[in-house]
C-alpha cells in the first residue's frame, strides 16, 4: 500500500491537557509531542488515565484544560465524528449486525466513498490484515483474533490521520497476542501511520513502540524510547512498573561520581547506574536478572548482600530465588538454571552481588512504593 490518498498522517500534540470527572482528575496536565508516523505508546497501571487521554484525542472527552492539536491544527472544537482518527476499542466494538464487509465499509459511507471504489478499498484493507475471503462472514462466526483484525481494518479503511488503539490485544490469548503484535508492528511500519497505542503490558509496549510515555495517577512520568524507560527510568514509579525490580531504602554517601549506599541492614552497595549522583535518603533499585548469587558461609564483604534463601522457583531456563536479607521485602534474583548457582537449596546462606552500573538510585521522598 503506498500513498495515503485523502489525508496524510499527522502528528499529535498535547499541551497541558487535563481531563476531570467531577473531583477525579483522570489526566493531569499531559504534554506530549507525537511525531507523524511514530508508534507511540501510553503505558501505565490500571486506572492511570490512559484510556481517558486516548478518548480525549478521539474527541469523546472534552478536556477541562489544555489544547490538543492534530497535524498542527487545534481540534478542541472539532466533534468526534470529524476528528479523522481511527480508533480500535479494547472490547472490539465490532458491529454485530453487519458482516465483515459491512463493518469495514461502515466509515467509508460517511466519507462519500461508495460503490466500486468502496468495494476496492474494503478488499485492499482486508488484504492488509490477512482477512481476504471472509467478507461475507458475520462477526459471530469469527474468532477473537479475526474480530480484532476486522476492527483494525475498519479503522484503517477510512485512512485516518491517526490510529488510536486502546489495549487492542488484551482480550486475546498469549500466543495470539504475540503474533498479532508482530503483525501490527509491521503493518504500522508499512503504512507509516501515526499510532497512539494504550497498554498496561510493559512487554508489549517495549516491543512495539518507537517511544513510550509512562503514566501513573493521571500524570506522565517519563517519555522516552523503550531503552530509555527500561534502562534509565526517570522515577521510582517508572522503574517499578517496567520490568521486575528490587527496591530498597538506604542512605547514599561518597565523593563525586558513583555513590556508596548504606542499606537498612547495614550492608553497603555501590551505585553507578542512573541517579548515581544522588546523596542522602534514597531508594536503591536493581533488576533480578542482574543479581549474581553464590553459596556463602562467611559474613559478607563490601558490595555484597547476604541472606537466607527462602524459596526456589524453577521455570525452565531460569531459577528464581527469593532471599531474606533482613529487609522488609525479600530480594528476588533470576539465575540461569544450568549455572552452578542454579542448584542452591532452600535454607542455604547466600551472597548476592550486583554490578554497580546496574544499580539505580531514586530520590528518597517517593515513599509510597507499591510493589
Amino acid at each position, binding site marked *: 500500500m503506498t500513498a495515503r490518498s485523502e489525508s496524510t498522517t499527522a502528528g499529535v500534540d498535547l499541551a497541558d491537557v487535563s481531563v476531570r470527572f467531577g473531583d477525579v482528575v483522570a489526566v493531569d496536565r499531559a504534554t506530549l509531542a507525537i511525531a507523524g508516523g511514530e508508534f507511540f505508546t501510553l503505558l501505565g497501571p490500571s486506572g492511570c488515565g490512559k484510556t481517558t487521554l486516548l478518548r480525549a484525542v478521539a474527541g469523546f472527552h472534552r478536556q477541562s484544560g489544555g489544547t490538543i492539536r492534530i497535524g498542527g491544527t487545534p481540534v478542541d472544537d472539532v466533534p468526534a465524528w470529524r476528528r479523522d482518527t481511527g480508533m480500535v476499542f479494547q472490547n472490539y466494538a465490532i458491529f454485530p449486525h453487519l458482516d465483515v464487509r459491512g463493518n469495514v465499509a461502515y466509515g467509508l459511507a460517511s466519507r462519500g466513498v461508495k460503490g466500486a471504489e468502496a468495494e476496492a478499498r474494503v478488499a485492499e484493507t482486508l488484504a492488509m490484515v490477512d482477512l481476504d475471503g471472509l467478507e461475507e462472514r458475520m462477526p459471530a462466526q469469527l474468532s477473537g483474533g479475526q474480530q480484532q483484525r476486522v476492527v483494525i481494518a475498519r*479503522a484503517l479503511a477510512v485512512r485516518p490521520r491517526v490510529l488510536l488503539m486502546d489495549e487492542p490485544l488484551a482480550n486475546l490469548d498469549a500466543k495470539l497476542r504475540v503474533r498479532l503484535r508482530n503483525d501490527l508492528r509491521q503493518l504500522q511500519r508499512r503504512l507509516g501511520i501515526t499510532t497512539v497505542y494504550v497498554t498496561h503490558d510493559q512487554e508489549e509496549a517495549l516491543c512495539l513502540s518507537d517511544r513510550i510515555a509512562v503514566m501513573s495517577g493521571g500524570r506522565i512520568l517519563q517519555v522516552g524510547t523503550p531503552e530509555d524507560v527500561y534502562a534509565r527510568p526517570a522515577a521510582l514509579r517508572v522503574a517499578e512498573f517496567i520490568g521486575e525490580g528490587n527496591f530498597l531504602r538506604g542512605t547514599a554517601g561518597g565523593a563525586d561520581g558513583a555513590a556508596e549506599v548504606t542499606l537498612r541492614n547495614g550492608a553497603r552497595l555501590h551505585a553507578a547506574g542512573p541517579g548515581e549522583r544522588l546523596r542522602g535518603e534514597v531508594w536503591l533499585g536493581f533488576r533480578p536478572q542482574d543479581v549474581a548469587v553464590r553459596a556463602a558461609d562467611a559474613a559478607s564483604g563490601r558490595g555484597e548482600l547476604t541472606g537466607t534463601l527462602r524459596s526456589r522457583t524453577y521455570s525452565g531456563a531460569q531459577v528464581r530465588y527469593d532471599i531474606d536479607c533482613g529487609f522488609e521485602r525479600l530480594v528476588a534474583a533470576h539465575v540461569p538454571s544450568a549455572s552452578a548457582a542454579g542448584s542452591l537449596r532452600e535454607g542455604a546462606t547466600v551472597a548476592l552481588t550486583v554490578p554497580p552500573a546496574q544499580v539505580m538510585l531514586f530520590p528518597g521522598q517517593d515513599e509510597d512504593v507499591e510493589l
Partner: protein
Amino acid sequence: MTARGSTPLRIDFWNVVTLAALAVFVLFLVYPLSRLLISSMTGEGGGGSAVLRTYVEFFTRRYYYETLIHSLAVSAIATVLATLLGAPLAYCVARFDIPGKLLVRAVIVLTFVSPPFIGAYAWILLIGRNGVITGWLAALGFELPPVYGVNGIVLVFTLQALPFVFLLVSAGLRTVDQSIEDAAINLGRRPASAALTVLAPLIAPSLATGALLVFVTSLSDFGTPMIIGENYRMLASQIYTEFVNEHGGNPAVASALSLILLVVTVGALLWQRAWVRRHSHGQETVRPLAPRALSPLARAGATAYVYAVVLAASLPLATIVVSSFLKGKGPLITSEFTLQGYANAIRLPSALYNTVMLSTVSTVLCVAAGALVGYVVVRRRGRLVAMIDTFSMVPYAVAGVVMGIAIAIAYGGAPFHLGGTVAILVIVYFIRRLPYSIRSVAGMLGQIGPQAEEASVNLGVPPGRTFLRVTVPMVMPALVSGALLTFATIAREFNSTVILYSGSTRTLPVEVFAQVLQGDFATASVVGTVLIAVSLVPIVLLFRFLQKDESVLV
C-alpha cells in the same frame, strides 16, 4: 448435575414437580383450548352437517370478516404509531439529560398498570362531544375531529401501548455497549446517524417484542371499541357480544371467532420469535450507553417531546382521578367538587374486596408454581421439560377474552360447575400470569448457575429441601418483585374477568366498565381511581423499598 439421565419414571422430587407442571398446563391450557375448538365446531341450528360451518360463514359474510380486517388494520396502525412515538421517547430518556426523568419514568409505569379501556372513556370526557377540551376549543372557535369510532380507538390503543415500547426499548438500550456507538462516531457518523445505523439494528429484537405486545394487546382489547368505537366493529368486541348476548349468547360462534383470534395472535407470536432469532446478536455489555450532552436548544426540543408524549399518555389517568372528585350528571362531569361520589358507589367496597382477595390468592399460587416450574425449565432436561417450556409460551399469545371463554366452556358447566365462583377466576388469572412468574425465576436462575445447589446436594441435602434452603433464598428478589408485578397486573385484569365474573365476584375493572356502559361516568371515575390506587401500591413498594426501576417490568 443430578438430574441428567434420570428416567421420568423414577420418583424424585423434581420428577413429581415436572409431572405436576405438565398436568397444570394440560388441565388449564390444553383442555380449555381443546374444548374451545370442539365448541366452535358443534354449534346447533342451521344445517348442522358441516363442522366448519361457522368458519365458512365467518369468511363469507362481510358482517363477520370485516371485524377481522378492522382489528388487524387498527392494531397494525396502533403498533406502528406506538413504535414511532415510544422508541424515540425511550431513547431521549435513556440518553439525554431530561429534567424530571424520575417523574417521567414513574408516569410511564403508572400508565402501564392502568386498566385497558380507561383511556377510552377518559378521552371522551376530554374531547368527546361534551368534553372539557372540546368546550374550551369551541369557545375559541376551533372544532376537533370526532374522537368516536376508529380515530378514538387508534388514539387509545397507541397511547396505552406506549409503555410496552418504552420499557422494551429502554431494556434493549441497556444491553448495548457504549463502545459500539463510539466506534460509529469515530468512523465519521453523527450521533443521530449512529443511532439509526448501529443502535437501532441492535435493539431491533426488543423493539419487535414491544411491537408484538402492542399488537396482541390491541387485538385483545374489546372494552375500548365498545366504549369509544360507536359502530366500528372489531373482532374481540364481536366475540364478547356473541358470548354474553342477553338472549343466551352463541357459544359456537364466539368459540369460532375466538379461535380465529387465537390463530392470529399465536401466528404473530411465532413470526416475531422467528424474526428475533434471525436478528439478535449476542452482545456483551462492559460499559452501558452513557448519557450524551446536548446543545441547549436540542435539549429543550427533546424535553418538550418527552413531556408532550408523557402528558398525552397520562392525561386519561389524571382525568379519572380528578373527575372522581367532581359532581357528575350521567355522562357529564360538572366542575363542582364533591366527595359524594365515593359514598354513592355502593358496589365499591365489595368490588375492592374481590379485587384484592382474588389478586392475592392468584399471586401466591402463581409465584409458588412459577418458582417450581421456572426451576424445572432452567435446570432439568428432557422431552417433558421441552413441552412445559413450549406450553408456558402459549398464554402470552392468548387474548384474555379467548382464555376467558375457553375456561368458561371447560369449567363453567358440567362436570366441574365452577361458573360464577371465585375458583374459576383464580384459574384464569393463574394460567394467564404463570408464564411471567416462570420467566422471571428462570431468568434469575439462568444467571446464577447450578453450583450452589449441587454443593448442597453433595453435602447430603435432598433436592426438595435444597430447593427450599438454597434456591429459594437465591431467587427471592425475583420472587418478590415478580409477586408485586403479578398482583398489579391481576388487579387490573379485565378482558377475561368480564367473561367469568358473577354478581358475587365482581371486580373493580368490571365495575368501572359497567358504570361507563350505564353512562354514570362520575361513579366510573370513583371506582377507577380506587383501582389505580390498588395497582399503584405494589409498584410503589417495588420502586421505593426494593430499589428497583422500571426494568423489572419487562
